């Protein structure tokens, strides 16, 4: 079982080998989806913040002053923290880390997971058996728990956290990709390709993969939000990135001992996490509608 919102068994209808039609459908449905619009705008803002954080930040995010725990003001729009650092600058820099981890982990998990799923589904036999035994093992646990185990073993730090979260998400992608492959393997265009003598790799990556992309994209989008939440939670528990890296979870964890004297330390970083995750969820929901991937659990 997993946090995944996509059931791999219900996605067979989603195959849509005509990308142009899909694109126009995207645009059309966006026009009447307020949530998706909100999501895209907010996420866009955060992405902007992520790219331009060094220029947008009013202060160096790690610069300490004796102006400790002063409330939101003109000089410090979101106040300062317990070491006199500007909270806005820290949250802006946190955007970089959080979005970077969210996106990179999902990309890694997607590449590995989809490859495993394709190989398992297409080759069948003992390869399928071995891969799926492992995937089933992982599937038995929530992604977050797996990430906790892995960080505990590898240790903390940016790279280790990325590895842990990536590995934790592999099973979701593998299952989606495998079930898509299983159903597509029987399709005529795959048969045709096979009779034309194309290599397995070519069939897999040129024919099956593009047709399986829709549910994978939806899964990927949703996973980004879980990865961001996961990173924040790991950091909060002391299992995350280095102590000096301002990530949202860490800013919250650091501020925890001071929140009754400085509420802003508890409120703003949490709001940032919530807004980003909410936006991604909205976008995921919209994509799911567009691609007609049935939501399931």
């Amino acid at each position, binding site marked *: *079982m*997993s*946090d995944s919102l996509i059931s791999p068994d219900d996605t067979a209808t989603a195959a849509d080998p005509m990308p142009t039609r899909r694109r126009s459908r995207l645009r059309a449905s966006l026009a009447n989806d307020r*949530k998706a619009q909100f999501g895209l705008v907010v996420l866009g803002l955060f992405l902007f913040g992520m790219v331009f954080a060094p220029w947008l930040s009013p202060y160096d995010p790690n610069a300490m002053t004796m102006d400790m725990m002063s409330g939101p003001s003109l000089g410090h729009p979101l106040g300062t923290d317990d070491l006199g650092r500007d909270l806005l600058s820290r949250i802006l820099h946190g955007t970089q880390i959080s979005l970077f981890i969210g996106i990179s982990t999902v990309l890694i998990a997607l590449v590995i997971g989809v490859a495993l799923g394709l190989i398992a589904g297409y080759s069948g036999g003992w390869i399928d058996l071995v891969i799926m035994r492992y995937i*089933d*093992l992982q599937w*038995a*646990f*929530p992604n*977050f*728990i797996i990430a*906790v*185990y892995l960080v*505990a*073993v*590898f*240790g903390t730090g940016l790279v280790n956290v990325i590895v842990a979260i990536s590995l934790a998400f592999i099973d979701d992608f593998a299952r989606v990709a495998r079930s898509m492959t299983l159903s597509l393997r029987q399709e005529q265009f795959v048969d045709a390709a096979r009779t034309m003598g194309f290599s397995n790799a070519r069939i897999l990556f040129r024919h099956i993969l593009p047709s399986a992309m829709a549910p994978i994209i939806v899964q990927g989008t949703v996973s980004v*939000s879980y990865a961001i*939440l996961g990173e*924040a*939670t790991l950091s*909060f*528990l*002391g*299992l995350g990135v280095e102590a000096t890296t301002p990530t949202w*979870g860490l800013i*919250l964890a650091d501020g*925890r001992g001071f*929140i*009754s004297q400085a*509420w802003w330390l*508890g*409120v703003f*970083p*949490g709001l940032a*996490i*919530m*807004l980003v*995750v*909410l936006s991604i*969820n*909205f976008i995921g*929901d919209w994509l799911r509608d567009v691609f007609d991937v049935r*939501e*399931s*659990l």
Partner: protein
Amino acid sequence: MSGYLLRRLIGTVLVMWAVATLVFFMLRLVPGDPVAAMLADAGSAEAEAALRTKFGFDKPVFMQYLYWLGNMFQGDFGNSLYGNNQPVRTILAEALPRTLSLAGIAFVIAIVIAVPAGILSATRRNTPVDTGVSFVAFLGLSMPDFWLAIMLIIVFAANLQWLPAIGYVPLSEGFWPWLEHLILPAIAVGTAFSAIIARMIRSSLLEVLKADYMRTAAAKGLTPRMIMWSHALPNAMIPVITVVGIAFALLISGAVVVENVFSIKGLGRVLINGILNRDYPVVQGAVLVVSAFFVFSNLLVDLLYGVLDPRIRYS
């Protein structure tokens, strides 16, 4: 059916064994010496040697593993490396009711909110009610549970002082003291779960309402209320049953985090502290128990699904 059950049971046990083995070996590869930590304050060389022998750290890792596995089959999970070397079984037995209490109350709160919300949202599709429910559900899904926990403490414990900020009181000391300590953490744990169920019920109900037999029922002249209660809801609940399994995943992993905020020494806190302290036997025991939850609830869900949906048959 019984053959299937047996196969699933064996598979389940194998999964748990695999997990335990992986954790046993991986935890021994990482730095951190529990004996050094234990003797940090006052320790002579011979006391240290005695402790190492006592815990079998002087034997090869593989021997330690066999030794441990043998003990486990006898129901002995070993002892904690710290403090008074409490048996892991006792630690887990104490932690279990805390996590179960927390998960149970979170489950109840979540269902009480989610079921009406889901029905309301499906029957009033595309009205402001639906939009509102959907938005709140999205918020619940997007909020980090530990942040929600902190916010709840600030508002209801620190400022309003309605409910205690931390801790756990066992049920044996009275229902209210027990419940009062669990309300805030349960809300923090249950919110995301509640949001998922509400959305689940909504989409499942919508699906069912579209089905042919609903039109048949309407044609037979049944009132919409009767259709809802005797046809639509029971059918819509079938996929929702799977959330019983999801419930464990979400509630247990939620509890891991939230227990830490509220200083409740449940399974999650035992697990995290065990990991941070490199308390091998505790981590192994906690992982086994947590794993058992997930694995057996998966099994349960599969079987339940077969009972509820006559179309699924196991051979």
